[in-house]
């Protein structure tokens, strides 16, 4: 029975069960679109809505983007750490008792990121440039979605906004769930949904499906997982066993880097985490002698490790893996290894001798930015700034040094939904969107300021929305320029 098989994948237990039962018990009657004054844009769930379309409108109409159920997904959210509520039976409509929801409820939805639909029609460049002023969308407050012509109490508005959000959350979650629990997962459909952000509770299983690690055929999953996990355990036992000559230089390099990986998150300070990362990286390095371990690959491990672990530990950032059952940790570690391997397969050239993949990407980035904002490139050249000086790291660590982990995880939802995977190609377009975001500031800077600015770009306050806007822009640049190789060679 497919449902049963599905339950075996880590993301559905125990947290997944909680959340899905929560959805089953939650019953909220939505206001009609007329009631909330949003009748001009209320797509059926799953209907693509052009983000660009809405952005071109006035700020006022932008607020009504909330009418797109998907766009409500993570509005009002500042923090994603709160665990989902255990159980909600009833939410009084217009009772004003917003607090009965608890802040955790609303916050818990955020992880699932809002959708930025791919826009079917491409806009011309000038129109895109007009978008830049709105790159930092204002956070919507619940009151913003008040229906005109009525003057309800603020609590009432907040409640209805939250109800909308919950229903949007519910709808999105169910759409994912439907795709994921099918006997045979429709990957194209999963990609279409995932491009716009995956609900946190379903992220682990979605990523594993998108990477081709988890078979799309549900009946094959448990066998495949068991085999891969055993294979990993055997592999580790072999390379760390007495019969294997330890590559001490490699081991040592990894041992230096693991304790300085993502140390601002408590999870990575625990010995059990560090030991797992050390094994994962070492086994990968031994099996890929053309590159071996290269600094930065340690960073690429963490989104997988944390996402897979989150299925078992609600407060993943604070979790000490030593406290989890051994079998659980072994599975997380093995899954991380295989998914990291799949990712690195697509960017192996980044890490082999002389790192030709990175050189190519940096060249492409420069060519691309020259098309998007020639003035910026002229300025950088005049200042003696070379793209290699700042973009090398962007490619080597996939912007993980520039963006916080939560943003990176959201970014990977999209990368994993690209065909081919977005880490080699789409990433260059994302880097272009990233650089161009700061174009105005950079054009006023001289060499040293440019380098220092880009070494430490001001992304600390970025939210998922910023990320999603950047993905959308990258998508457009890719659509415009991808097959125009001549553009990039210029």
């Amino acid at each position, binding site marked *: 029975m497919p449902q049963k098989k599905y339950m075996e994948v880590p993301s559905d237990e125990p947290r997944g069960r909680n959340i899905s039962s929560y959805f089953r018990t939650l019953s909220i009657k939505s206001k009609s679109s007329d009631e909330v004054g949003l009748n001009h844009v209320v797509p059926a769930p799953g209907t693509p809505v052009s983000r660009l379309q809405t952005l071109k409108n006035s700020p006022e109409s932008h607020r009504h983007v909330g009418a797109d159920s998907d766009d409500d997904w993570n509005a009002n959210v500042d923090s994603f750490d709160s665990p989902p509520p255990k159980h909600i039976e009833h939410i009084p409509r217009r009772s004003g008792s917003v607090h009965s929801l608890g802040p955790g409820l609303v916050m818990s939805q955020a992880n699932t990121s809002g959708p930025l639909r791919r826009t079917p029609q491409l806009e011309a460049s000038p129109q895109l440039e007009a978008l830049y002023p709105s790159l930092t969308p204002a956070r919507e407050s619940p009151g913003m979605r008040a229906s005109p012509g009525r003057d309800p109490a603020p609590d009432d508005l907040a409640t209805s906004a939250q109800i909308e959000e919950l229903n949007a959350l519910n709808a999105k979650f169910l759409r994912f769930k439907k795709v994921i629990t099918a006997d045979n997962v429709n990957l194209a459909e999963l990609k279409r949904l995932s491009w716009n952000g995956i609900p946190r509770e379903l992220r682990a299983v979605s990523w594993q499906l998108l990477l081709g690690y988890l078979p799309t055929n549900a009946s094959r999953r448990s066998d495949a997982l068991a085999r891969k996990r055993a294979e990993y355990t055997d592999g580790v036992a072999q390379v760390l066993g007495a019969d294997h000559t330890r590559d001490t230089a490699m081991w*040592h*390099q990894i041992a*230096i*880097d693991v304790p*300085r*990986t993502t*140390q*601002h998150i408590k999870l990575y300070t625990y010995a059990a985490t560090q030991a797992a990362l050390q094994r994962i990286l070492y086994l990968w390095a031994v099996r890929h002698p053309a*590159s*071996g371990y*290269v*600094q*930065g690959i*340690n*960073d690429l491990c963490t989104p997988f490790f944390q996402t897979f672990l989150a299925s078992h530990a609600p407060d993943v950032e604070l979790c000490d893996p030593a406290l989890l059952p051994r079998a659980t940790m072994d599975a997380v570690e093995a899954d991380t290894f295989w998914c990291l391997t799949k990712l690195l397969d697509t960017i192996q050239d980044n*890490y082999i*001798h*002389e*790192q030709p993949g990175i050189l190519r990407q940096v060249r492409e980035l420069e060519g691309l930015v020259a098309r998007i904002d020639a003035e910026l490139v002229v300025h950088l050249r*005049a*200042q*003696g700034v*070379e793209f*290699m*000086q700042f973009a*090398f*790291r962007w490619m*080597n*660590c996939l912007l993980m*040094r520039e963006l916080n982990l939560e943003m990176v995880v959201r970014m990977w939802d999209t990368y994993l939904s690209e065909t081919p995977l977005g880490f080699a190609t789409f990433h260059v377009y994302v880097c272009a969107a990233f650089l161009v975001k700061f174009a105005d500031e950079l054009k006023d800077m*001289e*060499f*040293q*300021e440019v*380098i*220092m600015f880009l*070494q430490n770009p001001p992304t600390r306050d970025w939210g998922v929305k910023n990320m999603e806007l950047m993905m959308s822009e990258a998508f457009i640049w890719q659509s415009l320029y991808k097959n125009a190789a001549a553009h990039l060679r210029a």
Partner: protein
Amino acid sequence: MADDYSYDYEYLFKIVLIGDSGVGKSNLLSRFTRNEFNLDSRSTIGVEFATRTIEIDGKRVKAQIWDTAGQERYRAITSAYYRGAVGALVVYDISKSESYESVSRWLKELKENADANIVMELVGNKSDLDHLRAVPTDEAKNFASENQLLFTEASALNAENVDLSFHQLLKSIYEMVSKHQLDVSDYSGPKPSGGPTISLTPAPVDKKASSNSGCC
């Protein structure tokens, strides 16, 4: 830091920081340029950059410092930054003998990729870890003098000798450059090819060009 963005300097020296992974290059740099030390600092990918302007003999000397990744794999990328550098800090960790043993390899790297007259200094970092010392001071000192390297032991953690090590390198470069300047002004014939490559970059006229390579 304000001085970093001003044109208020007379000499611009490009310096590279090299040495094995984990010896504390980035923290030496942050201690010198920002008086900061970060226990959780991540590995350097490729190169990172910082500057500080100090005064030597009444002249404002700006150090433009490129901090490089220690891992072998990055050598192809980082060695490109040696060009035009007039000074190099070769860093090892006094508590890790392997990092000291690598020093000759780093010197070879410099010989192959940097300008011939580059001024080099050997820096034994983590002097606060004296109880774990694996490299005797005298041994390193002797090695330094045999190889015409300046030498200090320093601690980025407690800041001991950090300024000193940078100052001593910059002063040595400054002395060499001012001497060279005199030599050149005495010389009236055509410039010899393959002559000294160390140069000073007067500010602000050549600033932009010099920012690129740190040197002509």
